[in-house]
Structures are given as structure tokens and as C-alpha cells.
């Protein structure tokens, strides 16, 4: 359990974290169309097993139903969305405007990201914006919330009350600044962190040690990111093709070592074991379970990981 910290927003996620409970978040990717039922169905699968649900923002630069509208759908279902926002597609006018739009629906959590380069997606010939970077997005939202001011200096009537998060990748290059970069995000005003998918637990523990040495785990809540592997092929793909992903050989070997039809089960097993091991690690404040197009497995992972039932934030 972490020590309690002051709560600054009405976010249920913040409340749970501040009370020292291990939080559980997950995420849903919006559909490539306007059918809101698809996002609602995904949310239904996981809603009883997580504290908040991230909605991705045109991830991998593939155009989808927008994150904000998807978050509103979840909010109308009585759930707790985490609005992901990338700086790739918005200038500072659009960013501040969308933040106010989210706040007008009392969306209470936001994750500030750079966004994948557009070359990966369906609009590789399009412009990118990058008026701000992810650190400056964090600063912007905190300024809007804490000072009640726009970047231009004017006062905001009814400032947005968002719990502000950021991503961290303990495995990306250059390795020597991985902890410094987290320190920078904390200094910019990030309050919670969701990490890149962890497969190399030894290396993650080493990173966490450095994080603790600098006391950063007392400044930001760190949610360990986990993605269950569906197959040996996926493990190899993640290892070889996804930049900044560290999948050790023994994980690939373990997945390849079981028959194809048993591989999904093995992937879940690895994920659950990771939860069990990392639960005990000082500084880990919770888990962010990204079951990519496999949302139905989230409840099982949460239950087997010993993270169920979820605390009732209204009773805290």
C-alpha cells in the first residue's frame, strides 16, 4: 500500500490511488466507424473489473471514432473514462478546446501523449501538428486546472478538473534517460503514469529501483502496463517489430513451447504471473491492462491476479 496523498479532483481513479489501493485500468480502442455500440460492448466486458477505462486517440495514426466522443459514451454509461490525447493532431487552440469539452461532460482523467508518427497510419501524406509536445500538454492541462487560466492568460470559467497522466517507457532508448524522463514528466505535472507493456520484469524492477532512489514513486502513481500475448507470433512481432518493446527470449520461448491452441492460455498465465510479482514491488500503484482486441480476457486476469473485487470509490 502506498501512503495517502491529497486528492485534487473528483476522479475515481485518483481517489482509489490516493487511498492506497492498487488501481486497475484498461483500455478500449474506438471503432473505425460511427457505431457507438462497439465501444459500449467493449466497456461492458470490463466495467466491473477496472476502475477506469482509457480510450485511445487514433492509435498508430489510423483514423477512428474520436477519443472524446467515445469517452462521452462511457461517461453516459456511468463509467470512468481516461481521455487519451495526442499532440500530433491538435494545435494549442484545439487542445484547450477539447479539454474544456471533456470537462463539460465531467470527464475526470486524461492521458497526455505525443502520438505515433502519421507515417504508420492511413494518412501518411497528412500534416502533423506538434505545436506542443507531451510534456507541454501536461503543463497546459495542469495550468488550466490549477490556475484556471488558458495558455494565453485569460481566465477560464469553470476550469477543467482533470487528473493528469502520462506514459512512460522503461525499455525505450536511450536507456540512460529513462528515469530522468519520468522525473521531467513529474516536474511537468503528471500525477499518474501508465507504462509501456512490461515483459522484461527484471529490467522493469531495475527501472523501478532507480525511480524509488529519486523518490519519484512518491510524486506520481505508477501503473504497470501489461498486455497478454495471444500467440508466439505476437510475441515475436512485439519483440522484433515494435520500437521500444522489450520481449525477452525466454518469454518468446515459453509461448512457442506450447501448442498453438494453448498459446492464448499461456499468454494469460504469463500476464497473471506478472501481476502477482509486480504487486509486491514497492512503487507500483496499480496496473494498466491493455488486452488489444481481447478485452473479454481482462476480468480473468484481474481475478486471477488477486485484484478483484474492485474497491467502491464512493465508499472510500
Amino acid at each position, binding site marked *: 500500500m502506498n501512503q495517502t496523498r491529497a486528492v485534487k479532483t473528483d476522479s475515481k481513479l485518483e481517489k482509489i490511488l490516493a487511498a492506497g489501493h492498487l488501481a486497475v485500468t484498461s483500455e478500449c480502442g474506438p471503432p473505425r466507424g460511427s457505431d457507438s455500440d462497439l465501444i459500449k460492448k467493449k466497456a461492458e466486458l470490463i466495467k466491473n473489473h477496472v476502475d477506469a477505462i482509457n480510450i485511445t486517440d487514433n492509435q498508430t495514426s489510423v483514423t477512428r471514432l474520436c477519443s472524446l466522443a467515445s469517452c462521452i459514451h462511457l461517461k453516459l454509461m456511468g463509467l470512468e473514462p481516461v481521455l487519451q490525447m495526442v499532440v*500530433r493532431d491538435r494545435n*494549442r487552440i484545439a487542445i484547450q478546446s477539447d479539454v474544456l469539452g471533456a470537462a463539460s461532460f465531467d470527464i475526470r482523467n486524461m492521458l497526455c501523449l*505525443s*502520438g*505515433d*508518427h502519421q*507515417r*504508420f497510419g492511413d494518412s501518411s501524406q497528412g500534416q*502533423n501538428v*506538434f*505545436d*506542443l*509536445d*507531451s*510534456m*507541454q500538454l501536461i*503543463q*497546459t492541462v495542469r495550468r488550466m486546472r490549477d490556475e484556471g487560466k488558458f*495558455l494565453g492568460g485569460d481566465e477560464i470559467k469553470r476550469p477543467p478538473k482533470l487528473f493528469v497522466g502520462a*506514459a512512460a*517507457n522503461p525499455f*525505450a*532508448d*536511450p536507456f*540512460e*534517460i529513462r528515469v*530522468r524522463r519520468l*522525473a*521531467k514528466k513529474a*516536474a*511537468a505535472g503528471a500525477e499518474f503514469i501508465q507504462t*509501456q507493456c512490461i515483459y522484461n520484469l527484471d529490467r522493469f524492477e531495475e527501472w523501478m529501483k532507480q525511480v524509488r532512489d529519486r523518490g519519484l514513486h512518491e510524486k506520481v502513481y505508477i501503473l504497470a502496463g501489461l498486455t497478454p500475448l495471444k500467440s508466439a507470433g505476437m510475441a515475436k512481432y512485439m519483440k522484433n517489430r515494435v*520500437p*521500444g518493446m522489450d520481449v525477452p527470449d525466454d518469454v518468446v520461448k515459453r509461448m512457442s513451447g506450447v501448442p498453438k491452441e494453448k498459446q492464448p492460455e499461456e499468454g494469460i498465465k504469463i500476464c497473471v504471473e506478472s501481476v502477482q510479482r509486480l504487486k509486491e514491488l514497492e512503487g507500483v500503484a496499480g496496473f494498466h491492462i491493455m488486452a488489444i482486441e481481447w478485452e473479454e480476457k481482462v476480468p480473468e486476469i484481474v481475478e486471477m491476479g488477486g485484484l478483484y473485487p474492485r474497491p467502491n470509490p464512493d465508499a472510500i
Partner: protein
Amino acid sequence: MIVADRKPIEEIIEYIKDRDKVLIVGCNECVTVCEAGGKKEVGVLASALRMYFMNQGKEIKIDEVTLERQCDHEYLEEIRNIVDQYQAIVSLACGVGVQFMSEKYFKTQVYPGVNTCFMGVTEERGVWSERCQGCGQCILATTGGICPVSRCAKRLLNGPCGGSSKGMCEIGGEVPCAWQIIIDKLTALGRLDDYEKLAPLKDWSKERAGGPRKVVREDVRQ
């Protein structure tokens, strides 16, 4: 220098195929260094065009000239007496030269003969790469002399993003990660602590976003 690359000859043929007299104008500055629009390239392009139209049975008179620069009145004036003899000019200067020519000789059609790419360096003969985007407010003092605006694919002022892998950028194509270089440089300078200083929001009004820019120096103005 301003780095340009040659346009496909088919594109230039398409521009001038209905003309009878065309002047190809090279530039002795940047485009000569990057081997896209100097005297040599003017000669090569003119010969190729003559050969193409001869094979097509079409007569076009194609003349050549290379000026010292195309971004100064002084040198552009050198062709004033001959411009009227041509129905079109193909300028192998950068986009700056093409435009200055087009503005000066207002009744003459001026076509671009190169694609203007960026401000950059010669890494080795035949390899040029970008170093500056002219953002109007240089921040190199804070980034170890390496520019994230021109060399990071996301222009991150507080990079790197999660896509930096083994020193390379996530966009591929052998593009080095600018932030890897910045961090290596700060480390070499013993100033890695500087990495943790947050870069403030940039004033992009000094850049393209603020509209066409102008530098006026009253102290040297005549």
C-alpha cells in the same frame, strides 16, 4: 545550403512540350554544391531534352545559361536583354530563385526544374541531410547544438518519444533519432542534467505559422 533534388525529366518535358524556345537557367550557389542545378546539370538537362524532342520530331530551341545567384537582383538582371527571346524559362535554382525570376520577368513563364527540399549539409558526396527549418528563434543553445525542430520527426522540444530505437527514429528510412544525438552530446559535454530542464512552449509565430516572414535591417538598409 539549400538542398534541392532533380525533377523527373518527364515532368519538365510536360511543362515545355508546346514551346518553341526555352531557356534553362542554372544557379552557381547551393544547387551547384548539391549537384541539382549548377552549370553541369543545366548542360545535362538541356542535352537530354534536345535529344528527346529530336526523337519526337519536334523542334525546340533550348539554350543554357548559369547565373552566379538567382536570389539577387544584380545577377538576375544579366539575362534581361535575352529573356524576351524565350517563351519559357526552366530555372534550376531553388524555389527562391524560381520565384524571384518569375517576379522580375513578369510576362515570362518560369518553370521549376528542381524540387527544393531543405536547408542541410553534405554528409558525403551524393548524400545531403536536413539541419535547419528556419524556425526564426534558434534554440540550439539549449539542445547541445543539435536541432529537434528540424531533426525530430515530431519536433519534440522535450524528447525523445517512445519510438527511439537503437539510435534510430521510428519513422524508419535510416533517420537518426535527434534526441539520441542530443543526449549523447549533452553526455559528452558533461551536461546531462540540462536534459531535465523543461523546454518552454515555442513561439511558432516566428516560423511558417506566423505567415511569410521578412528581416528588415535599418542599419544596413540603403
